[in-house]
């Protein structure tokens, strides 16, 4: 009875409803885009985009703008720079990514300092870096949904060409796939996903939402569609579960709830460990070894 009552109360709470909608959208988009990102071996680039986007989020706080616009602007700009540089060699790409990441965080440090001294917005740093799920203004919802829809559409459009590119870029080109255009489209979807994640679980933790569910799903799924579906389920489950636990935590330590982002990241991590254990238990299902080999 009391559980039911608390569930009803939970869903009637306005900040909770905004969190469920925007957080759920972010988790779904991150899962779908994340699978492609892990398969393209661009996890580090995804993390860097998130860190750079924190400068945009900070600027938005300083100027009193919609935070999503801030995150989005800088993530998209950084994705553009990294795609424009046309560096295909892994080592050099990593170096450039690292440098861009550092510059972005440095800028964020400056802007957050101004935000806390000039505007005495002391919560800005925590909100930008570690998320602000329960303080997302309801006015952000339409823009967040539009961003999510765009990212999902772009991701679905380039799904197959991107798979061929993950197999081999030369194979893709021989098939008439415009590899540059496809990669640019994926970078755009990545920037959109990252900005949603940054606004909900925070710029620093957005990697967990982007890479975690995808990596867990790829440990057990054998087909691309299964990987995407499983990643989406893990991302959504962790996000909604995390929101619920954070809400409940107000009762554990009265007057002082625990941060949502902590619960979400913890649930994602648990899913990753579970997937690893399952992959060990069912090696044949997970990776498709020929029958008869699993005993060794």
């Amino acid at each position, binding site marked *: 009875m009391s559980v039911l009552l608390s569930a009803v109360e939970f869903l009637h709470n306005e900040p909770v409803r905004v969190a469920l909608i925007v957080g759920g959208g972010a988790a779904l988009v991150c899962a779908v885009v994340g699978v492609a990102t892990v*398969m393209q*071996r661009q996890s580090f680039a995804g993390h860097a985009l998130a860190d750079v986007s924190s400068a945009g989020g900070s600027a938005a706080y300083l100027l009193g703008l919609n935070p999503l616009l801030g995150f989005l602007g800088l993530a998209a700009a950084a994705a553009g720079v990294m795609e424009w540089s046309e560096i295909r060699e892994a080592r050099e790409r990593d170096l450039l990514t690292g440098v861009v990441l550092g510059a972005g965080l440095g800028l964020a440090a400056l802007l957050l300092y101004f935000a806390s001294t000039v505007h005495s917005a002391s919560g800005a740093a925590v909100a930008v870096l570690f998320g602000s799920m329960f303080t997302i203004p309801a006015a952000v919802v339409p823009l967040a949904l539009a961003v999510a829809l765009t990212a999902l559409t772009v991701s*679905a*459009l*380039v*799904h*197959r*060409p991107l*798979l*061929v590119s*993950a*197999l*081999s870029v*030369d*194979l*893709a*080109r*021989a*098939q*008439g*796939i415009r590899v540059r255009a496809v990669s640019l489209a994926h970078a755009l979807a990545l920037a959109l996903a990252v900005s949603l994640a940054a606004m909900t679980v925070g710029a620093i933790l957005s990697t967990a939402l982007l890479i975690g569910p995808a990596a867990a799903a*790829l440990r057990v*799924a*054998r*087909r*691309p*569609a*299964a*990987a995407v579906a499983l990643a989406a389920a893990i991302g959504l489950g962790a996000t909604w579960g995390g929101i619920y636990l954070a809400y409940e935590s107000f009762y554990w330590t009265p007057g002082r709830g625990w941060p949502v982002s902590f619960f979400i990241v913890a649930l994602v991590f648990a899913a990753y460990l579970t997937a690893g254990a399952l992959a060990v238990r069912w090696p044949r299902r997970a*990776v*498709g*070894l*020929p029958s008869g080999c699993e005993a060794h």
Partner: protein
Amino acid sequence: MSRSPALSVEGACVALGARLVLRDVTFALEPGEFCALIGSNGSGKTTLLRAILGFVPLAAGEIRLEGAAGAPDPIGYVPQKLALDPALPLRARDVVALGLDGARLGISWPSKARNAEVDRMLRAVGAEGFAEQRIGLLSGGQQQRVLVAHALVRRPRLLLLDEPLANLDVRSTAEIVALLRRLSREYGAAVLLSAHDMNPLLSAMDRIVYLANGAAVAGRPEEVVRTEVLSSLYGYHVDVVRVHGRVVVVAAEAGEQIHEAVARDPVHTASVP
């Protein structure tokens, strides 16, 4: 009236950086012909295949594909040394399906016709036994079969394979050669297959393109693999020698060098046709 060639290469020159890697390459392939592209490491085999695919521009000359008037027929391609990630969630059958419609935008919906086509192709290359397994976990020979199916599933007029026999054991090599030979006949696709060792191919090939010095001689094996022809291509005297049932091409200089040429560069060996 003879059909137009599936591929014709005329006076092709390719420069990479400051180097002229291919100076003057001329040959043509008929539909359904099985052709070996032979040359030692660094002779420009990969470069020539990439030029045919349009990945690198020609500095001079011309490359024409059958049907180039309208939309050019697709080329099937199996790249050299693909390191396939074992973590990719792609089964052998998914790879073949991507050969069919991987360039299309949007996600794919289940289709009976598509599955049937993929099954047919998997059977044609003898891959039905490992169709459900991840591509990155298959052996080299199994991966080659799947990649051949990926390349052939759209029925291209021309199939390019870059060193598909490298890293295969003797048995897999013979099996893949026999398979490609059979498929080129069945599908009417011209096959151009690069290798640094012509030995496993001599009994299968209709034609050979021999690359050295940035130039090529092309023709039937018995016309090309001859002392006079290859000496003139290399620009110095080489001997085509038959040893223990193999043909070996050696530089006719100091005995020490001959030995080194044979041992170090595995190379220009071939069984007597």
